[in-house]
């Protein structure tokens, strides 16, 4: 299996090529907080007709582990946007943190994201709907490898207000040209996701149905 190297500012990201089918629209997998890309196409995704890529976020998997932390879901969205720049258009499947990032990117690049599928996974809730008592914790263990302990700390604290999340749904709905830009397969429903599923253009469904739906789009 090969990986493409993408530059995002000072970070080199690993974009793993799990399957190549020239011409057909790609599926881009986004992992959860503290996770890394799968080594091969997951059985649940095997029916996808096109290429399948999987991105390691900054500080995760084979991507650069930077010094001193400072992670936000928005910067992870820009990681995913670097993959989108390479792929052109893609359908996104995100787990946990990656599900939230998929929502953000679907709203921010509505023409390039051809459907986003939001699944359960690590870091789905983030830091909750509003800030809690602040704590400043330097990670105890800094050994230099992935996942970056700063990523584990910062991405458990990033605040995800429901009305902020739904503003991305509205952008996706208004600007993507898709009737159903978002599909939610997650069973867990943190506040931001509970608000998202109430919006027009969002379908709660199974992963298999969602993949089939987006595969059939022109």
């Amino acid at each position, binding site marked *: 299996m090969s990986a493409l190297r993408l*530059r*995002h*500012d*000072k*970070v080199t990201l690993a974009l793993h090529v799990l399957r190549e089918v020239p011409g057909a629209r790609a599926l881009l997998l986004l992992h959860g907080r503290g996770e890394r890309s799968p080594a091969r196409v997951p059985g649940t995704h095997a029916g996808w007709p096109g290429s399948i890529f999987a991105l390691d976020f*900054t500080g995760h998997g084979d991507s*650069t582990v*930077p*010094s*001193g*932390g*400072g*992670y*936000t879901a*928005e*910067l992870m*969205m*820009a990681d995913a*946007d*670097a993959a989108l*720049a390479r792929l052109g258009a893609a359908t996104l499947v995100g787990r946990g943190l990656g599900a939230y990032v998929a929502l953000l990117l679907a*709203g*921010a*690049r*509505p023409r390039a994201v051809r459907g986003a599928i939001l699944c359960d996974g690590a870091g789905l809730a983030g830091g909750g709907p*509003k*800030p809690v*008592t*602040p*704590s*400043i914790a*330097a*990670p105890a263990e*800094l050994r230099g490898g992935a996942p970056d302990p*700063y990523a584990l*700390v*910062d991405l458990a*604290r*990033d*605040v*995800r*207000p429901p009305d*902020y999340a739904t*503003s991305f749904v*509205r*952008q996706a709905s*208004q*600007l993507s040209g898709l009737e159903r830009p978002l599909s939610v397969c997650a069973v867990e429903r943190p506040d931001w996701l509970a608000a998202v599923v109430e919006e027009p253009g969002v379908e709660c469904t199974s992963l298999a149905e969602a993949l089939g739906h987006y595969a059939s789009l022109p």
Partner: protein
Amino acid sequence: MESEAIHYPGACAPDRSRSADVGGLRLAVHEWGAADAPPLLLAHGGFDFARTFDVFAPLLAAGGWRVVSWDQRGHGDSEHAALYNWDADARDALAVLDSTAREPCPFVGHSKGGSVLLHLADACPHRVTRLVNIDGLPSRSRHPDVASHERTKLLAEELAGWLDHRRRAAGLTRKPGTLDELARRRGRMNPRLSHDWLRYLVSVGARHDPDGWRWKIDPALRLGGFGPWRPEWTLQRLPGLPVPVLGLLASVSEPMGWDTTEEILRPHLPPEAEIHTLPETGHFIHIERPGAVADLVLRFLA
């Protein structure tokens, strides 16, 4: 190339400079005043750097304090980081404090630096004795009262603009120019500050490359932006502060300012809080009126 020495009345270079490490990231720390005087932590605002305090900090040092400031990550002489967020800035502030003193001390912060120190005071109340906030209490939202579909469009443009910037960020460099050009460019953000002062700032905050002067700040950093953060989250840290608070507010609106008024703040003030609005003064209160602000701060800390 050596930097050109430019003088400005009352401006003094730091008495000592050193560095502090945060998880492998190097921060430049600057101190004014006697090394054995009681410490005071001083934080600059966004797109500034510690040496914007070259006039103000020596006045506090003359009042008997060891004034400790630092260039925030990506700013001034500190290392450019891959990532920037609020928590990281507060973590950096704590690392600078840890490298300075273990006993609690006063915090003084301007603009974004004021908000970062408010966050630090809330997280570590045992490390602060008194808090001075210089026009660093945000209260306005970016897109007031526009229709929701308009807001969606504005946000979409802002997001696309930011992502396009991130796509270009690798290898970006600041635009070079003459010392006067850089001073004039900065004047757009600091319209009330004199050209002589801005020229001085170029001489200490920019580097002189063979093709011209360049600001040292990380080119990946960009004004504006978006995100889940909202001003009331900073204001809600105020009422519970366990230490005396001095708030200084600008009275003239300008591009980098926050437009916060006493009326907005009053419901959020803790019991021992003092607020002063400086007449005919913009956002860079301590630069426009260094003597008056230093007097207010020294009296409050006495």
